[in-house]
């Protein structure tokens, strides 16, 4: 303990020395004097000391602390309780727009959109184990397919939604072909490049995509020809995204627990063994890319309809990074984890606005904290499915075939 305190003090002194020029010395250019802010130094020293001691304590007791957050959630193991929680959650989600401002609804809509994006990327990264850093490209394909189809052919939202998903899936396959042989870092680099290529094309091909100025005046989703006020439209889009989210969860869960989902996981675990078991690597990878991308395409269409405006600036690498962070933070391969990850990742920065300038700093600290204590993500290690075993003669030998 004494050694810890000493270490903390040493770090604090070192920090105080390093930051002396920035934190303490301040030149007043008008009066040409130097202001010495010694109080800053004291505060800084105290803060660093406390953080160091606490940080070192936590990392030494990491296993004990992680145990507070067990992998197998005993509460959720209860089927009745689980159903009850789901009903409460569904009610909350449905009633949410009735009690909150448009501003809050908008944020929640964004969070839900990222949840769907995360679930889509989770197919590629979490299940099939293909590190895709250019996922935002498919989001852009969806958004621009609605924007352009509407601009040129006057296509409505409901027609554009499946087309956007389909086009994104086709782009997923197009990206998939050249990267079939790549894994890990190399795959990450190429997909990163792909994402940037799509963005650069949108930015520079003025005749096609109207360049950096983008496309404005995209209509909001229609509701049987009714004209909605802006507030109602926001609420309507919230429900649409919520519905898409529920469909995504349903479909992605079913896929994961199917023959195809198993093949994805096997591919992630060991590619050579996977092929030796008779699984077509090409087909399996391409389905993962296509099915992952299609969700991004649909969310893209929704995004275009929500903001009524698209330009390439919305589809930078940062978006890909955020979506990937949601998947990693939530727990690779876990549906619940990704949804929680999206909510935390999008809502937290909003609600941290109270901390003004320190917002992003605090956000970063929380991210680092989660990754230190839960490297497998919030809901890491999704419990493997244990199948009900056929009871046919558990012990005795079974006859041939």
């Amino acid at each position, binding site marked *: 303990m004494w050694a810890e305190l000493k270490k903390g003090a040493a770090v604090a002194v070192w920090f105080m020395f390093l930051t002396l020029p920035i934190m303490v010395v301040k030149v007043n250019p008008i009066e040409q004097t130097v202001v010495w802010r010694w109080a800053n130094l004291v505060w800084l020293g105290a803060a660093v000391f406390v953080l160091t001691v606490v940080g070192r304590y936590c990392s030494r007791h990491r296993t004990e602390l992680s145990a507070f957050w067990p992998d197998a959630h005993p509460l959720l193991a209860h089927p009745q309780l689980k159903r009850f929680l789901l009903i409460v959650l569904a009610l909350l989600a449905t009633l949410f727009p009735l009690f909150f401002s448009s501003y809050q609804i908008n944020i929640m809509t964004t969070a839900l959109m990222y949840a769907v994006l995360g679930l889509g990327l989770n197919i590629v990264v979490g299940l099939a184990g293909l590190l895709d850093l250019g996922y935002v490209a498919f989001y852009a394909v969806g958004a621009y397919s609605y924007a352009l189809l509407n601009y040129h052919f006057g296509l409505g939202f409901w027609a554009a939604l499946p087309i956007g998903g389909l086009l994104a899936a086709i782009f997923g396959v197009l990206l998939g072909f050249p990267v079939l042989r790549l894994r890990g870092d190399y795959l990450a680099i190429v997909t990163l490049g792909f994402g940037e290529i799509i963005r650069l094309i949108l930015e520079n091909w003025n005749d096609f995509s109207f360049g950096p100025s983008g496309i404005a005046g995209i209509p909001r989703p229609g509701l049987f020809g009714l004209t909605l006020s802006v507030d109602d439209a926001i609420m309507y889009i919230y429900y649409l995204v919520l519905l898409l989210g529920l469909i995504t969860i349903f479909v992605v869960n079913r896929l994961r627990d199917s023959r195809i989902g198993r093949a994805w996981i096997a591919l992630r675990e060991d590619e050579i063994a996977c092929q030796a078991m*008779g699984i077509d690597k090409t087909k399996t990878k391409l389905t993962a890319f296509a099915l992952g991308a299609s969700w991004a395409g649909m969310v893209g269409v929704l995004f275009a309809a929500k903001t009524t405006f698209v330009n390439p600036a919305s589809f930078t690498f940062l978006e890909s990074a955020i979506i990937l962070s949601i998947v990693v933070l939530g727990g690779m391969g876990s549906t619940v984890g990704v949804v929680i990850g999206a909510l935390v990742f999008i809502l937290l920065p909003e609600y941290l606005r109270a901390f003004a300038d320190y917002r992003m700093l605090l956000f970063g600290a929380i991210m680092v904290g989660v990754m230190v204590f839960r490297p497998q993500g919030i809901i890491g290690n999704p419990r493997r499915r244990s199948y009900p075993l056929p009871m046919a003669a558990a012990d005795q030998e079974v006859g041939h075939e």
Partner: protein
Amino acid sequence: MSEVRPLLEVRGLSMAFGGLRALHDLDLEVSCGEIVALIGPNGAGKTTFFNCLTGVYAPSAGDILLNRPDGKALRLNGLLPNQITKHGLARTFQNIRLFSEMTVLENVMIGCHCRHRAGILGAILRGPATRAEEAAIIDKSYTILQHLRIAQYANDVAKSLPYGVQRTLEIARALATEPVLLLLDEPAAGLNPTETSELDALILQIRERYRLAILLIEHDMKLVMSLSDRIYVVDYGERIAQGTPAEIRNNPAVIKAYLGEDDA
């Protein structure tokens, strides 16, 4: 049918890695129901031979012909590993390559993959046909686990298994692909004498029950001598001998190649 052609016919197989001749003009045959061993000192090219058979490597020369018991004959050169598995060759790996995060049952279910066909739509809608297929896969996988006496581990994660069980699971997974020829790459490596003699009995049972031929690579001479109908010996990628266990035991070239390593 004038004569019964062997199940697997390998003619003049060669494989080079750059300048290194890993396999040179190798001939080998396996007939239906036979257990054939492939032996040779370390680095002789045995695993490379398996990799050529299963499509992991493309051989530089030679023919690999499969004459399936159902009468279908085909050339395996140039096919993808998964196509070769589908045609009835299944293998295990020398350094175990299980799907370590998946359960034992799931590992075997992956082996069933190529014999079933449920697609994306089936997975989403999960209609009666898909559910029946899924149940059949579980049933079949579990039966294989029972045959190999590791059914009690069905829902354990593969990486948590004892070493010997992991080796058995590799065999179970290969059996699930419904092979006509099973390729075992050092199945006894790392097993203790008791486990090895259990494996001996198990391999014989597998041949009876699944009516398949087995080609195995093994360093344990006791196991090789007791199991094999015929033995091929390779050294530096070339076949230096072939014959029954008794013939091989007394072959001077083999004894020379092993330089007293032979413990049989």
